[in-house]
């Protein structure tokens, strides 16, 4: 009996101590990990969309509630105007979800760039959605509020040959991005206004300092 109690006590104390240590470490590294993931997973796609931006879109980000989900938005300052945002949406591909980073100009509602962040498509076939820059480049300049469909389904998207399912997934992801954009546009405009005034303020501060 005494041995039994000892076993229970030792294991309980050990587990509790381990749980506490891990929880505090997780809290401590949470922000850092989130930034690292941004930088290495989504970063390349974001920076590609905002080529020539004068700010750092990875730092200038905010979150908005869209129903129950929280979405991250990245702000880009192009040609002196903070009127572009990028955000992520997902479409169902051949081997799982395809993550898309979609950049859009709020004045014209047009897509300024699309990048694939994550995918698990067949290497060499569906994976070309990420590696072939020509595929995502075709979306540039399209109004985001369109419904995207591949040409075989009577739409406007040139599918990757041999990877129709992947192309459909990307099109669906873009259509979804359009819906998110429509839902959140008023809030996005408000947030962006804050960003442009904030940017001016820090500039003044720099001059004074």
């Amino acid at each position, binding site marked *: 009996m005494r*041995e039994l109690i*000892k*076993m229970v006590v*030792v*294991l309980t104390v*050990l*587990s509790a101590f*381990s749980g506490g*240590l*891990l929880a505090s*470490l*997780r809290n401590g*590294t949470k922000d*850092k*990990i989130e930034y*690292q*993931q941004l*930088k*290495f997973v989504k970063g390349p796609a974001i920076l590609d969309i905002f080529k020539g931006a004068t700010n750092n879109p990875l730092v200038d980000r905010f979150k908005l509630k869209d129903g129950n989900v929280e979405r991250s938005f990245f702000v880009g300052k192009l040609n002196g105007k903070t009127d572009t945002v990028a955000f992520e949406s997902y479409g169902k591909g051949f081997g799982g979800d395809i993550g898309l980073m979609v950049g859009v100009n709020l004045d014209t509602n047009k897509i300024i760039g699309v990048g694939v962040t994550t995918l698990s498509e067949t290497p060499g076939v569906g994976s070309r959605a990420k590696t072939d820059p020509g595929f995502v480049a075709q979306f540039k300049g399209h109004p985001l509020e369109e419904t995207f469909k591949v040409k075989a389904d009577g739409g406007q998207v040139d599918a990757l040959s041999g990877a129709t399912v992947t192309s459909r997934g990307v099109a669906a992801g873009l259509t979804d991005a359009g819906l998110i954009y429509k839902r959140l546009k008023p809030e996005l405009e408000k947030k962006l206004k804050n960003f442009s005034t904030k940017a001016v303020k820090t500039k003044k501060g720099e001059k004074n300092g």
Partner: protein
Amino acid sequence: MAKSITQEFVKGLWEEIPPFRLVLGLCPTLAVTKTIQDGIGMGVATTFVLVCSNVLVSAMRNIIPSKVRIAAFIIIIATFVTVVELLMQAFTYPLFLSLGIFIPLIVVNCIVLGRAEAFASKNAVMHSLADGMGIGTGFTLALAALGAVREVFGSGTFWGTPVFGPSFHPFSFMIQAPGAFVCLGLMLCIMNLVGKK
């Protein structure tokens, strides 16, 4: 406790070098040694877990009831593995991406549990520390050697920089799984030949 602390450390470098002499921990040895960086990264992560778990197991060896010792060891090891995983995600993210699933799999690495059970649970803290560091360093050296050979012949680079001229065709067999087995086998063979003399 016939051996000194230094002896406990040194034995891990040759006499009991894990993948070659103990032939333990082969799963990460074969899987992550595509490049020397990955090999060293994996070795350092394992060494950290090994040292920490050895010290803690040894310090608690009189408290832990022998019937639940394996469960207790696993809790200790799993905690340190998660610590390593979080730290790697926070500070060396590219390495974390290339090692992938093999970081959490350190939990079931035979070397770590083997040292806890066979050594740390029977020896003093300082000796266990030395043992952990020795075995860990040996493991790191072995992975680095295997990684270097595979990287040089498989991709034609060493630590990311090309070592051969542009006319070199990478021997891509070496960076695939069969190449890992062949390479490990040859190294074992050399180790045994040298050890016999």
